[in-house]
C-alpha cells in the first residue's frame, strides 16, 4: 500500500470526514478514509441532535434509511435551581415537517457506520483501526500521512480528526486548545422501553424531545444539561466549560449524577438502566477559535476546525461538520481539475465556507460565547426566576406584597444595576 498514491486521504470517519470521502469517491477519485476506532463512530460521541439540512443535500431523504433515533418535534429549555425548574416548551407538528428543516436525535456509534457503508459503496477504501500520527510534509507541502511508520501518499489530506485535532496542531495550523475554547460533555445512555419514553414525554411514534437546561445542571458553573430521547434509550448529560472547572467542588462525574437526581429530571429516567457512559470535548468559542483552514495539500474540517455554535437553546456542530466536509470535497475536486493542490488551489474551500451558513452563522452569532460565560446566566438568573415564580404560584393565605414590587425587589436582590446593564449590553451585542 505504501507505494500507492491516493487522490485524497481523509483522517477521521465522523460526519465531516465521511461526507468528504463519499463526495470525492463519487467524483471518481481514489480515496482512503482512515479512522482510529475499530469502526467509524466507535470513538465519537454526540449529545445529540443532528440538524438534517446539510446531510439532506448529500443524501436526500436519508432519514428513511439511516439509523436515526427520533425526529425532534418537542423542544424544551429550562432554567433550574436545586429544587425548581422553569420550563419553556414548544411542540409542533411543523417542527420537521419537511426534511430540510428536520432534526433528529442520533447516536454516533450507530449512525456513523451507516455513513461509512455509503462511503464503501461509493468506492472509498475504508481503513478503520489505524492511528494517523502525523501528516507527511515535503518541501512545505502535505503529501501524505504517517501511521505508525507506515507512509501513505496522496495529492491532498483532509483533516477531520475531531476537536482535539492533533494533526492540525502538529502542522502548526491550530494552536493547543485553551480551557476557554472547549467544554467537556459527559453522557449516559439509559435504556427504557420505547412505550415508556412515549408516555413520559408525551410523544408518539418516532417523535422525540430535545431538552436543554442551564443553572443547576452545572451547579451554577458555565455549561448546561441535556436530555434527548432516542428510540428506546435516553441520552442524558451535562456540558461544562473547562475554564470554569473548579468553580464548585463537585467533580464532573458527580455533576452528572446530581443532574440525574434533579426533581425535574429524575421522574423521566426512573427505572431505566444505564448502558453506556461517555465523554467528549465540545468546541465552544465559535468564530474566535477557527484555525488555519488550508495549506498546501491540506484542509481542516468539522470539529477540528472548531465549527460549532452554541446558543444555549440550540447547539449545532454536526450540520456544520457535514457542510464543511462537503465544501472541502468540492474544493478538492476543483483543485484536481486545475491540477493545483497548493494553498491557493484549495482556497476555494475558504471562499465557499465564507459564503455558506457556517461562517455566516458563526460570525452573526459571535457574541454568544460572551453571554454564555457570564455567571448571571447560570446562577443569578435561575435563582431570580425561581424566586419570582415561587411567589407567583404560591398561595399561602398570607397577605401578599404587590407582585410587581416583588419582581422589582427580587431583581434588585439578585442582579445589580451594573450587572444587568452589562448583561443586556452583551445580549444586544450578540443579536
Amino acid at each position: 500500500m505504501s507505494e500507492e498514491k491516493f487522490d485524497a486521504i481523509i483522517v477521521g470517519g465522523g460526519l465531516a470526514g465521511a461526507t468528504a470521502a463519499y463526495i470525492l469517491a463519487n467524483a471518481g477519485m481514489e480515496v482512503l478514509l482512515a479512522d482510529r476506532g475499530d469502526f467509524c463512530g466507535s470513538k465519537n460521541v454526540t449529545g445529540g441532535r443532528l440538524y438534517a439540512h446539510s446531510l439532506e443535500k448529500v443524501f436526500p431523504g436519508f432519514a428513511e434509511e439511516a439509523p436515526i433515533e427520533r425526529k425532534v418535534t418537542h423542544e424544551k429549555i429550562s432554567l433550574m435551581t436545586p429544587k425548581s425548574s422553569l420550563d419553556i416548551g414548544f411542540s409542533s407538528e411543523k417542527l420537521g415537517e419537511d426534511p430540510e428543516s428536520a432534526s433528529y436525535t442520533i447516536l454516533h456509534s450507530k449512525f456513523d457506520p451507516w455513513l461509512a457503508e455509503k462511503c464503501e459503496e461509493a468506492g472509498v477504501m475504508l481503513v478503520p483501526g489505524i492511528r494517523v500520527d502525523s501528516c507527511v510534509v515535503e518541501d512545505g507541502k502535505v503529501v501524505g500521512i504517517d501511521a505508525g511508520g507506515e507512509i501513505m501518499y496522496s495529492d491532498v489530506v483532509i483533516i477531520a480528526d475531531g476537536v482535539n485535532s492533533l494533526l492540525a496542531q502538529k502542522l502548526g495550523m491550530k494552536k493547543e486548545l485553551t480551557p476557554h475554547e472547549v467544554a467537556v460533555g459527559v453522557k449516559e445512555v439509559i435504556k427504557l422501553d420505547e412505550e415508556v419514553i412515549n408516555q413520559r414525554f408525551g410523544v408518539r411514534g418516532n417523535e422525540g424531545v430535545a431538552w436543554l437546561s442551564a443553572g443547576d445542571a452545572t451547579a451554577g458553573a458555565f455549561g448546561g444539561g441535556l436530555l434527548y430521547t432516542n428510540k428506546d434509550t435516553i441520552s442524558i448529560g451535562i456540558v461544562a466549560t473547562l475554564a470554569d472547572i473548579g468553580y464548585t467542588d463537585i467533580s464532573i462525574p458527580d455533576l452528572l449524577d446530581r443532574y440525574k437526581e434533579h426533581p425535574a429530571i429524575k421522574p423521566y429516567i426512573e427505572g431505566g438502566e444505564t448502558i453506556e457512559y461517555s465523554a467528549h470535548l465540545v468546541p465552544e468559542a465559535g468564530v474566535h477559535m477557527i484555525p488555519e483552514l488550508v495549506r498546501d495539500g491540506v484542509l481542516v474540517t468539522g470539529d477540528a476546525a472548531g465549527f460549532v455554535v452554541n446558543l444555549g437553546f440550540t447547539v449545532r456542530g454536526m450540520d456544520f461538520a457535514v457542510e464543511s466536509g462537503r465544501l472541502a470535497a468540492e474544493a478538492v475536486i476543483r483543485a484536481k481539475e486545475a491540477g493545483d493542490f497548493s494553498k491557493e488551489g484549495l482556497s476555494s474551500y475558504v471562499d465557499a465556507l465564507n459564503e455558506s451558513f457556517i461562517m455566516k452563522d458563526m460570525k452573526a452569532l459571535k457574541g454568544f460565547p460572551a453571554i454564555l460565560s457570564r455567571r448571571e446566566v447560570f446562577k443569578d438568573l435561575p435563582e431570580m426566576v425561581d424566586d419570582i415564580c415561587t411567589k407567583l404560584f404560591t398561595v399561602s393565605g398570607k397577605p401578599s406584597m404587590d407582585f410587581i414590587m416583588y419582581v422589582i425587589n427580587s431583581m434588585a436582590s439578585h442582579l445589580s444595576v451594573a450587572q444587568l446593564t452589562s448583561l443586556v449590553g452583551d445580549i444586544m451585542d450578540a443579536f
Partner: protein
Amino acid sequence: MAKMSVDDKLGLDLFHTDEHNPHITVNEDYDDMEEIRKVLLACPAGLYHYENGKVTFSHEGCLECGTCRVLSIDKVVKSWDHPMGGAGVQFRQG
C-alpha cells in the same frame, strides 16, 4: 435508578486496553495544588488521584476526551496522545 460509581459506569463500556503503552503520562511530582485539583475534578472517568504527595493516573478506563490535555498539558499532564489504532474505548452507543 440506583446510584452507580464512576467505576461501575466504566464497567459498562467496552475497552481494548493497551496495557503496555499508556497514551497519557503524568508528572507525578507536579505540586501546584490548584492545577491538580482542576484535573481531579474534571476527568470524566475519575482516573486522576493525588496520594502521598504524588499525582497518579491509570489509562485503563480513559474515555479519550482530551479534557486533561486542554487543562494541564506540560503541567500535570506530561504527554497525551490517542491510543494506538483499535485500542482504548469502543463506544457502542456514542
